[in-house]
């Protein structure tokens, strides 16, 4: 096509740096404004929102983190379930949860409305922390301590699914979190160890 009007398969002749039509400029402007909204929501949520993946983050030797977890278990252990220690730390405590193929250690008993610092790390490979049924997800990386301040807002019986492929037993890796109500009672116990 020798004309000015051409398809994307033709070489444009002469200078093609020309002003765009009004409607095209309109759409670019609207799209740009929307992109700014998309962007602004993130700092806004850090300021006003209640769910942010910020956390306290530091490197840690996997073995040291596991040792810290065991110390934490010794301090607050209240029982054992399916061979996994059950721990009930006081409100405000630092909680240590270690992921290893194919377990989450320990089982946690928390209190509704209390804030904890939940430290996540892995002993061996990457794992994925997925709190069921809330659908809250974090990556658990060996060598890194992810300390998230969490406040359970409802009591109940929760599970931790591993949702990062960690080996052939990946689909058997389920942990447990029990959130007691304000007066320390279990509610809606749906099952448990199998």
């Amino acid at each position: 096509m020798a004309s000015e009007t051409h398809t994307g398969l033709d070489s444009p002749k002469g200078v093609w740096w020309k002003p765009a039509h009004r409607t095209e400029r309109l759409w670019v402007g609207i799209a740009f404004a929307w992109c700014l909204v998309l962007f602004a929501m993130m700092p806004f949520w850090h300021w006003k929102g209640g769910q942010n993946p910020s956390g306290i983050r530091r490197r840690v030797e996997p073995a040291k983190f596991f040792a810290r977890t065991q110390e934490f278990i010794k301090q607050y252990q209240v029982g054992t379930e399916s061979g996994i220690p059950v721990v009930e730390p006081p409100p405000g405590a630092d909680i240590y949860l270690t992921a290893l193929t194919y377990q989450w250690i320990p089982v946690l008993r928390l209190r509704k409305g209390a804030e904890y610092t939940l430290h996540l790390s892995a002993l061996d490979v990457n794992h994925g922390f997925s709190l069921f049924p809330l659908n809250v997800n974090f990556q658990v990386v060996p060598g890194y301590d992810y300390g998230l301040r969490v406040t359970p807002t409802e009591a109940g019986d929760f599970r931790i699914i591993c949702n990062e492929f960690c080996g052939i037993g990946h689909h058997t890796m389920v942990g447990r979190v029990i959130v007691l109500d304000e007066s320390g009672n279990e509610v809606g116990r749906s099952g448990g160890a199998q």
Partner: protein
Amino acid sequence: MTAVFRACPVTGRKIDAQAEALIRVNAVVSIVSLLIGAIAAVLLVLTRWQAVHLLPADWFYRLLGVHGMSMLIFFILFFEMAVLIFASTVLLNARQVAPKVGWAAFGLMVVGAVMVEVLMFAGKADVLFTSYPPLKAHPLYYLGIILFAVGALIVVGLFFANLVVAKRERTYEGSVPLVTFGAVTAAIIAVITLLHGAAIYIPAFLWSLGLMNMDAQIYRMVWWGLGHSSQQINVAAMVAIWYMLGGLTVGAVVLNEKVSRVAFVLYILFISMASAHHLLVDPGMGSAWKVVNTSYFMYMAVLASMIHGFTVPAGMELGQRLRGIGTGLFDWLKRAPWGDPGFAALVFSVVLFGFIGGITGVTIGTEQINIIVHNTLRVPGHFHATVVAGTALAFMGATYYLIPLIFRKKVAFWGMARIQPYLFAIGMVIFTMSMTFAGSFGVPRRHWDISFSQAPFDLQFSPAVDLLLALTAIGGLLAATSAFMFIAIAVVSVFFGQPLPDLSGGYPIAGVPLGLTNPPRHAPDVDARNAELHGPKMGWMGPAPGTLALVGVFLAAFIVYFFVNWKVLSFVWKIG
């Protein structure tokens, strides 16, 4: 070596025999990879459908790795190599520079790909396509990927050499066409991507040999510098094909070269930041880094896609209106060549990429919203809408034109070819939406058994999840069936197809896309018509009012989906 050319019977372009041969072999290997990936896909969906649960655990994870590599890396990249050669030779009437080097590069890529496939099937690389350390594969697996990448880098180098030589030999006048410009964008991003690839796979190779240490988080960051940038290659190549198919099927015009080209440049500028949206809930990086990077510094790459999302359909609308087809808002769409599989594939690729892939992608790539998404089925739900319903479908549409143009064959099983894009699109809509919904219940991706029968604690998903996984399987099987139809059409056309008949008659011929038998030619006075359509006659909505209405609907859907997700996020525990 002097190049041997033939003239294209349809477009009159000069085609170099060596370029043509390289395009062919890359396309063929691409289709073979698609076949392997699609067979794996069928077995995967039939396993995730918990009521069927076909594969044993080890083979599920193994074939998941095979599917990821065969599809995302081999199918897509071999096809892109063909696109790069096509855009730098055929579109410019130019010759292939150093064809021997081109063959050597192709050979390297094939050797690398075969090594990777063999090791995966042998169970020596059960690490999925991301191969996050400390999970470790056989050293030759990493070496195979390195060989493949070196080959790809050489082809990209030849692409640039072709452009330089074409310019010097004045094989075309003016600037390169927009389609080639899009391919240039893809090629530049490919260089950035492959450098990231070298930065991660060479250390991973050494690590697998026990020669160095590897930090799990740094690997994830650099790996996604490769993994996500490569998706931007796909987007750039796909958009280039959108412009190409628009031109071939409905005479789509370029609204404004400046706007479309600047949008391509935005892809290049902001691409290296994209690895962030895979790391939003990782411990290694802080929030400031996450916010700046996941937004590609304020969503500039998203802006670019939203621009193409307007200019591509608007160009098509204008292409129709300029030829006097349609006056109302949507007549141009109604009276479009829906029976041309190149056109149907184009439309579905644009719509599904934008409405499903784009909206979900930007939303789940938001720092905080990622908390309710990461590693759930929402993630494969999203990217099958971008790279499969978007890129793969666009490539399929392009193939229906490449078969007659490059292979000089009729498209076999023409009736089947005409419905193939429809089936693929329907399947993908069901598949991606069901996975997305299942994911919002927290169903994990990459997971063999969500009944958790061997887990220490019981866990039961809502019964809705069973239904959604069944729908996922049905959608997936429809799409896979369509992929097999496509493969059969491509293979039979190329190897056993009938030679292309004379196309100058101007009447439709079964087996030849309409855009070739009845090319959408513009009248000699097209410039005057164009000026008129850009004038006051069209009212405030301008030359492409139908498109403006459609992008309005798109924006409304986007806004609703985005804020619904914030609302859902606000219901979970307080986390900070």
